[in-house]
């Protein structure tokens, strides 16, 4: 038997990443300043880690209920009400998942299959498309534009909708662009969707990380609430990436369907992580506020740094990414990243890793120390000055 032939073509033919070559290169250059890591540099606050240790000491080492500890679901319910004005019943409308990623996967598996279409704005997080393809459904890409500050436009959405459209993925605040959708932007999207049978999967994993205006969810519009699945989690808000814990809030029928997939695929989310998460939601606000202030300072330094380097850089108001345009250098995204890495030892990610329309951009993450960001920006300025001379 040739095992390779046994693999389902849809899985076999899925590239593990479009920029594998660049990944390997970054791993070789050991002493580079890394702005390529989409993960908080902060460790999980100690009071949260301590709560997890305590739960282990108390022997809380068994399965939790499939949907997650009821106490945690109740805390999630309070939290989304307090923070975003969203009301969900902890018994029927909330499920605790293994990271936001699992929520995306089981939502898609509960909603779409062959013949269905899923609208995915790009550039965006790399998992939406593969998760869609694995269900047999067809991803339909909408190319977000820098001239719209990477916000989804109602016209673009209308153009992408067919009678096979079943799901829209709404990824804001956005990885990799740092774009956010304001209330008035969401209003226009809601107007397009209000009389259509399309479910919105709103991936709000970066909701805590906005600078200026507070995050608004499309589920805040009453006519959209029952059509929207809100996905969030603990990784970004509480620097808990390794704990693998997220949640989804939505219509009881959708949550019940996701519950089935979740129950048979993985039983329940890690119990220790859930105990830690209860503490995070109860007593984590001050830490989050201090962290957001620090990210905001780094964000300003980084945006200013790219602009000083002569690169167009739209003002990102969410997440922890800056997404400058590098076309003026005459290089492709991958070429820019490879040469910046080799010549100046700074790692950023080529924009095309997040969809074809990310070409001409790079993603730099400011989940890095202020000293490293300041140094990296100096090096990037050296780099662009050097290469602008070559162009002339």
């Amino acid at each position, binding site marked *: 038997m040739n095992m390779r032939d046994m693999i389902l073509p849809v899985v076999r033919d899925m590239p593990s990443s479009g920029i594998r070559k660049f990944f390997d290169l970054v791993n070789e250059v050991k002493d580079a300043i890394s702005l*390529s890591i989409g993960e908080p540099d902060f460790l999980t606050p100690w009071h949260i880690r301590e709560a997890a240790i305590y739960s282990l000491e108390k022997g809380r080492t068994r399965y939790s209920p499939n949907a997650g500890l009821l106490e945690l679901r109740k805390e999630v319910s309070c939290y989304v009400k307090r923070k975003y004005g969203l009301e969900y019943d902890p018994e029927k409308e909330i499920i605790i998942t293994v990271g936001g990623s699992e929520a995306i996967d089981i939502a898609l598996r509960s909603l779409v299959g062959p013949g269905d279409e899923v609208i995915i704005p790009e550039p965006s997080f790399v998992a939406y498309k593969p998760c869609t393809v694995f269900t047999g459904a067809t991803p339909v890409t909408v190319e977000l534009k820098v001239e719209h500050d990477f916000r989804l436009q109602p016209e673009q959405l209308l153009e992408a909708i067919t009678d096979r459209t079943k799901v829209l993925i709404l990824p804001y605040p956005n990885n990799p662009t740092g774009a956010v959708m304001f209330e008035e932007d969401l209003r226009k999207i809601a107007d397009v969707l209000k009389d259509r049978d399309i479910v919105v999967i709103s991936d709000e994993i970066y909701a805590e990380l906005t600078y200026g205006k507070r995050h608004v969810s499309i589920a805040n519009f009453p006519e959209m609430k029952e059509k929207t699945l809100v996905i969030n989690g603990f990784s970004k808000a509480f620097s808990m990436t390794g704990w693998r814990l997220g949640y989804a809030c939505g219509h009881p029928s959708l949550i019940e369907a996701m519950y089935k997939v979740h129950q048979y695929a993985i039983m329940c989310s890690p119990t220790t992580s859930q105990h830690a998460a209860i503490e995070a939601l109860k007593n984590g606000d001050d830490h989050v506020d201090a962290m957001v202030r620090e990210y905001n300072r780094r964000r300003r330094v980084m945006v200013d740094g790219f602009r000083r380097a002569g690169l167009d850089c739209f003002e990102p108001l969410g997440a922890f990414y800056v997404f400058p345009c590098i076309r003026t250098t005459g290089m492709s995204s991958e070429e820019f990243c490879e040469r910046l890495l080799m010549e100046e030892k700074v790692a950023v990610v080529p924009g095309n890793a997040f969809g074809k329309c990310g070409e001409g951009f790079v993603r730099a993450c400011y989940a890095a120390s202020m000293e490293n960001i300041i140094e990296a920006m100096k090096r990037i300025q050296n780099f662009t000055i050097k290469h602008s001379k070559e162009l002339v």
Partner: protein
Amino acid sequence: MEEILEILEKNSRISDEEIALMLNMDADEVRSIREKLEKENIILAYNTIINWEKTKKETVTALIEVKVTPQRGQGFDKVAERIYKFPEVKSCYLMSGDFDLTVIVEGKSMKEVALFVAQKLAPLESVLSTSTHFVLKKYKAEGTIFEEKEQDDREAVIL
């Protein structure tokens, strides 16, 4: 203003220009606020936290609990002043509870600190008693942990 203090409390060597950039302000504006904070004694000093253990210099730190008699009209302030004016005294706090003042003293050796207590502190008229505790090891001071910095163990690229 509070955010300027928050930044300086973590890193007093940061320049006005860098603070301005972080807070979307003008460097001159930051400078004038900082100078005002200095004038108003809100910013008192720009100190450095040093792990002397790693240098050749020998130092000993002691925490001394002091019981005193407060003075008419001046309470504890006058007694405290007589104590904190000694350069050996690094910190001095008025406390609630069993004793009145916490006095933190640094010296080159235990003997030096002991002599300070015996010859200067204890004989003061208002000092009723002292109880000296020597610091054996510093784990954390002023919010800074003394052990080696943690390595960044994140993967090289995360999308």
